[in-house]
């Protein structure tokens, strides 16, 4: 089986994010970067599926600046077999990323594409779905599983995505409003993953060393023949509206009183 998994370089969610005074973007100086957490879950799932279905191969793909090689190496250190970096500086909207991936997938012909459901920088949650439609594939977004993250299945590192015996389809449980939906999707397909599909592994030191020797192919949008002119442009970035400072109340009686007579919400 050939599994393609995407990994985006994003601002670390533990870094303090501040808007630039000129309102063009956020301050990036002093901000740490890392792999999008949802993508790490996608990588973990790809590795579990590979290991349960040998011989198989996992390719980690990133579109972004040259520095995104770091995030590809982190996927390789987790266990992915090879990497592809589509180098581009500056703004790439989700649609451009979907079209870059489309071209790459037409070349690589993977059986399954795993992606994070959203990247925690632009919080778009659209790339996988756009890609599925461009390719004419089925999709299963927000992949999760019935078993909890504390379950025996998770401890045994079983894949949450259940491949059919003939590997022509997969069953995917999805986190949707109101509950858990289960779909059967024909392969090749796009699956975007949610938080409770698995707990991603940490890369061990020997695997970090090994990852340095794994192949990473470098491409550009031009080499793929894709025009990355954005359909969505960011015009302005502002800080969110601030909430007026609140107060601490000494006890429950005061709280109830305030909620009743001041805020009038109970």
């Amino acid at each position: 089986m050939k599994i393609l998994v995407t990994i985006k370089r994003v601002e670390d969610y533990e870094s303090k994010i501040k808007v630039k005074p000129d309102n063009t973007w956020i301050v990036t100086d002093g901000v740490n970067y890392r792999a999008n957490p949802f993508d790490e879950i996608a990588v973990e799932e790809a590795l579990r599926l590979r290991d349960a279905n040998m011989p198989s191969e996992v390719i980690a793909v990133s579109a972004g600046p040259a520095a995104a090689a770091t995030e590809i190496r982190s996927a390789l250190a987790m266990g992915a077999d090879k990497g592809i970096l589509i180098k581009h500086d500056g703004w790439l909207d989700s649609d451009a990323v979907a079209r870059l991936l489309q071209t790459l997938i037409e070349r690589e012909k993977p059986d399954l594409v795993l992606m994070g459901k959203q990247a925690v920088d632009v919080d778009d949650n659209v790339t996988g779905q756009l890609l599925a439609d461009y390719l004419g594939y089925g999709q299963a977004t927000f992949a999760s599983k019935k078993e909890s993250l504390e379950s025996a299945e998770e401890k045994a590192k079983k894949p949450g995505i259940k491949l059919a015996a003939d590997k022509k389809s997969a069953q995917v449980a999805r986190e949707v409003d109101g509950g858990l939906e289960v779909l059967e999707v024909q392969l090749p397909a796009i699956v975007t993953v949610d938080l409770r599909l698995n707990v991603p592994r940490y890369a061990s030191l020997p695997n970090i060393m090994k990852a340095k020797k794994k192949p990473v192919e470098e491409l550009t949008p031009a080499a793929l023949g894709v025009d990355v002119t954005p359909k969505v442009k960011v015009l302005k970035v502002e800080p969110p509206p601030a909430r007026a400072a609140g107060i601490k109340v000494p006890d429950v009686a005061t709280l109830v009183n305030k909620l009743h007579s001041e805020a009038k919400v109970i």
Partner: protein
Amino acid sequence: MATVLVIAEQAKGVLKKASFNALGAGQDLAKRLGGAQVHALVIGQGVGDAAKQLAESANAVHVADGAAFANPLAETHAAAAIAAAKAISATHIVIVASTYGKDMAPRVAARLGAGIASDVLSFTGEGNVHFKRAMWAGNAVATVEVTTAIKVVTIRGTEFPAGAKGLNGSVAALAADGGAPKTKFLEFNEVKSARPELTEARVVVSGGRGTKGDFKPIEQLADVLGAAVGASRAVCDAGWQPNDLQVGQTGKVVAPQLYIAAGSSGAIQHLAGMKGSKTIVAVNKDPEAPIFQVADYGLVDDLFKALPQLSEAAAKLK
């Protein structure tokens, strides 16, 4: 001439409340576009009554009703939406950024060559309308421009008022089939609850890791206040409460009149889902917890002590 198409969401033939907010957003957009027509579309099986209800707030309603649409598959529902958009030459397509809308809207955009602005909070400008949306877990609000002729917009339901009534549009069946989907619906394990739905509730009582999985004090207070129950990611990850209750950047976004957070630290990803609430109450043992920075009323206390007292006192008010 601009035409707005609002795609409604329903379950078992009953419209989701946020569909009316989508109509409100559609009307807002239509006004900014110089008085565009607002069409609505409902897709499903047995959705005739839902269509009639939509007609009150739309100039015309299209109905894709049939067995092919019985389950909310992105492929089949997007096929109907694309057919409707083409039939009326829609320039703007609006849908709620629920899991249903997020799943299908990008497919509609892809097929129509449209750009998509997701989880939009508000519109700005007239004529060439731009869209405001949160990024970086709500640490920033961006104004974005969609440069394509057709634009797809998913909206945050809690940020728009329900649409005005009195338009009384005509209702007509849409000629659409679901195509040949590559996905098959197998089952839906619904989380059943007698409490109000999280995104629709007037009051939400939410619990964090501080509950250690014991939600009794949360549920007791929710019952006294007629509230929905919410949770932090820590709670859902541990399997203490259904995933469906997660509030935050990557869960549900709520904006009730009153949000009571007990035993949650107030991580930015949680705040992203509840900062828009009118009044926020935090109960936390740790006076330094970041949740107090957004709380209108903060109580430094053990939730197992404070919540039962709160339930008792609130019950007496009734």
